[in-house]
């Protein structure tokens, strides 16, 4: 160790010959032009306002306050704003996904996204009560599309539900305890060939509670009302390759377990109905939802179980929108998904008349309910062909609402569907089976469920959740809440009453906080990192 090495450390050799000077000048000039061009584009081109790809509105320029400046959030938010609203954001993101594809190759045509590092064995994956904790917080209930509500370019007759921007990360309003906020039931996403499948990590114990809460509804409603329970398998059950099956718990086992815990509610075996048709397009490849065709087979099974008439597929007009790339691209940013769009399709009955009324909820920043619009009449099918990533919103325009469809079918049967977004594709096949259909999202409902169902003379109640939701704690909590909330007489009759605005937001916003902080840990974006680092 000699002291002089630092001082006499070699500096750049001073080259003074002409050729290198000319070369340097040429290089500097070229680079200056390029850098100026890119900088000019970054600064002066119109900023992006929303991301269709990520299905969210982008950051807004922060408002100044002394506190926010002093604690660094103001400047951090400006940095965030600048990179979030970069011109042509979605296009650049797509190019970035293409670049990232060069980091390696897919063996067996598989790429795993956010799959937990577990090299787990069958024993650990199905152990009772151990839902593997996943690092993805947005995904499993798959309501990003529907929750968004506001899309400026969507041609919809339903008024925008809210003006508030929706953050993709924080929009889960899980009514779950803090510790539960991150333990959703998925194990990550595998892109297999051109199909993205969300790996299932559900657990028995939650499924049992789900069965129990369905039974509670049956008990509350009494013998006059039929209660059905349809747990809908997702694509991972049928399309997961053997090599990654240890990350994908059996949905069949979980569904059977739930059904075995039902006493008076009637199970609907959607599973076998779907299993018989796996060669058909019953699930989307680029979206986490099932397709209308999958919903058709499940609805057929339900109609059979409920003893109602059922219209054959030939009684419908099929509508197709090409170029559909669903939620799986925004979740994984896997370029393979983007490059392999599919058709979105839905069915409109030829000979049934529909009278559809929407009771839309207004949502706050954290996706909590802050109010309710006046009831409004519209069509059941809405046009989303201009924002193709949101095509699944064709059914009713999303989740944050109660939908009432009065049909020209007259048989005295009145159905209420309690559902997550999977349930949105079901009603189209039940218009010829029921006189009235009420579609209720478990996350957006402010009345007392028992009172509401009785008041509307419901004869049949269908719980239609996908297997992820049926084994997620927050789902059970939602259903519990719907049974106990709003017992004051005032709240049950008048829409948009004070009960709507006072009781619910307080609760959900508290939960929201925990979800956000959990998300910070796992779903770090570049911007949150910067913010954390600079604090």
């Amino acid at each position, binding site marked *: 160790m000699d002291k002089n090495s*630092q*001082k006499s450390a070699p*500096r750049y050799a001073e080259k003074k*010959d002409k050729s290198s000077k000319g070369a340097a000048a040429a290089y500097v000039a070229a680079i200056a032009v390029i850098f100026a061009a890119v900088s000019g584009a970054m600064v002066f081109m119109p900023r992006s306002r929303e991301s269709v790809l990520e299905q969210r509105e982008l950051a807004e320029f922060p408002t100044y306050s002394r506190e926010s400046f002093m604690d660094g959030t103001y400047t951090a938010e400006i940095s965030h704003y600048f990179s979030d609203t970069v011109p042509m954001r979605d296009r650049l993101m797509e190019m970035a996904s293409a670049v990232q594809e060069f980091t*390696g190759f897919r063996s067996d045509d598989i790429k*795993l996204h956010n799959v937990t*590092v577990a090299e787990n064995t069958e024993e650990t994956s199905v152990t009772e009560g151990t839902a593997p904790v996943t690092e993805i917080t947005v995904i499993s209930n798959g309501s990003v599309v529907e929750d968004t509500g506001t899309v400026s370019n969507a041609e919809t007759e339903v008024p925008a539900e809210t003006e508030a921007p929706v953050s993709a990360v924080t929009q889960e309003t899980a009514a779950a305890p803090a510790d539960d906020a991150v333990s959703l039931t998925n194990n990550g996403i595998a892109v297999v060939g051109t199909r993205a499948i969300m790996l299932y990590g559900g657990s028995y114990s939650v499924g049992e509670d789900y069965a129990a809460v369905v039974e509670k509804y049956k008990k509350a409603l009494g013998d006059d009302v039929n209660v059905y329970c349809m747990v809908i398998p997702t694509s991972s059950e049928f399309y997961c390759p053997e090599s990654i099956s240890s990350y994908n718990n059996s949905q069949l086992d979980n569904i059977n377990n739930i059904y075995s815990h039902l006493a008076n509610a009637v199970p609907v075996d959607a599973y076998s109905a779907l299993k018989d048709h796996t060669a058909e397009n019953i699930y989307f490849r680029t979206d986490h939802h099932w397709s209308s065709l999958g919903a058709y087979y499940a609805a057929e099974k339900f109609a059979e179980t409920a003893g109602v008439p059922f219209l054959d597929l030939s009684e419908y007009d099929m509508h197709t929108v090409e170029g559909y790339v669903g939620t799986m691209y925004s979740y994984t940013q896997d370029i393979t998904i983007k490059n392999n769009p599919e058709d979105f399709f839905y069915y409109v009955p030829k000979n049934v008349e529909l009278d559809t009324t929407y009771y839309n909820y207004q949502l706050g920043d954290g996706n909590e309910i802050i109010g309710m619009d006046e009831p409004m009449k519209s069509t059941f099918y809405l046009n989303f062909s201009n924002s193709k990533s949101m095509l699944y919103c064709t059914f009713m325009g999303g989740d944050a609402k109660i939908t009432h469809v009065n049909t020209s079918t007259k048989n005295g049967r009145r159905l209420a569907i309690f559902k997550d977004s999977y349930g949105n594709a079901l009603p189209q096949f039940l218009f010829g089976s029921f006189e009235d259909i009420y579609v209720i999202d478990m996350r957006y409902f402010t009345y007392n469920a028992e009172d509401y169902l009785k008041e509307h003379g419901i004869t049949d109640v269908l719980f239609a959740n996908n297997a992820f939701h049926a084994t997620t704690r927050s789902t059970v909590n939602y259903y519990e809440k719907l049974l106990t909330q709003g017992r004051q007489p005032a709240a049950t009759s008048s829409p948009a009453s004070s009960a709507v605005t006072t009781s619910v937001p307080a609760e959900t916003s508290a939960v929201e906080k925990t979800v956000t902080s959990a998300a910070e840990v796992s779903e770090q974006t*570049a911007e949150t*990192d910067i913010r954390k680092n600079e604090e």
Partner: protein
Amino acid sequence: MIFADLLFLYIFLPALIIFYILAGFADKAVCALTKEKGFAGSINPVKNAVLIIFSLVFYAWGEPFYIRLMLISIAVNYVFGLLITFREKPSKAFFVLGIIFNIAMIGTFKYGRFIAENLNALGIPVPLPEAVSPVGISFYTFQSISYLADVYRGDVKAQKNPFRVLLYISMFPQLIAGPIVRYETIAEDICSRRITVEDVSEGAFRFFIGLGKKVILANQLSIISEQFLDGELSRLSVGGAWLGIIAFTFQIYFDFSGYSDMAIGMGRCLGFRFNENFNYPYISRSITEFWRRWHISLSSFFRDYVYIPMGGNRRHQPLNIMTVWLLTGLWHGASWNFVLWGLYFGIIIMIEKYTLLKVENKIPKVFLHIYSLFLIVFGWTIFYFEDLGRLGGFIKIMFGASGNPAGGIVTKNAFTVNLYLLIAAAVCSVPLGTLIRKFYGRAIKTSGGAAAMVIMKVAASAGLLWISTLLLVSGTNNPFLYFRF
């Protein structure tokens, strides 16, 4: 602000370039004027002013509150510099006071919580202060210490102009992540620097290289390391553990050296020449060599300001070595794993001194490389896990002592989808750049070669900038590791 950020790249930098060029013209006018009047001051006062303003904005952007701490520190150190040399004979008392001030400051703001926690653990109840650790405090405090020491030793004159001290300490390229620049390195550049087109060419290219290292390599590698190192250990395979820690080994090198490259490159463009901070550390044949090649500005700081003053190899050398390595570890973070990490290297270097270094020439090189890389990678394991419990668990998995499976589909998948990235990282860790530079230097002198070489260099720079921009936009991952320090 950090360098690998769109706002920095496309607003801060262009604005600085424009103002800096304008300041160049202003300086010429000022110089002409002062020459007339017979003053002989700095030839670039306006440039210095622009640089100070931009540096303070840069710092305040990320640390709007604690910028006052930095300013106080600079003011105090400026005064101590003057006090030390107030009389002809340098004042030891003021020197010691100045050092105490700096150590007390970093001790309070960076290590306050750590110290209090450990006192509490020992049963001495003290209130726990908030962990603040202002950005860059480790770097600017060390620069201040080196300034005072150099002034005290008479290696440099104390700077009488407070703005020049302010510029030295706060200059944004090296402010928050080094290298630790010594005052004497840039003392001359501060008052009279001339920027040639070669400086700008070299500096700009260096910046793009650094940006690419940071955004294309380090950020992408961090996706792998996070996936395997931050998860539940009970579910980690042996292969996954190694894949994760090897990815981190590359990640931290490209992260930190990329940042140093950007700093050196920008400094060069602005007319300053900083010393090199990295010299292909992963090609070392011993740990002793590794530390001559890794974060050179830090290890030479400890050598010149701790090791040698303590007596170097003349008296109680083992004590000197272990002190240096204890401090090196602690410098990296206020946590016990960093202490462990420092002592780990201290012990290895001490052992090497009496064993390996004496027989190095007789051992086949390949074994020396394997030996060094193994100890380096293992070192990063200690470095990574601040939770000692997790560290122990992870080491058990690495060596198959935990019964975790050897591998699995997730590890295999992460390996194949990142294979080219890992290969690129390995290739960029060896002195390929030196070879290319040699080739470029020769080709550029031939008649047809010059144009081709310039075009290739421009294409490479534009490519690095463009891909980095895309990845920053997609921005799934942009943690900067050395902020912790």
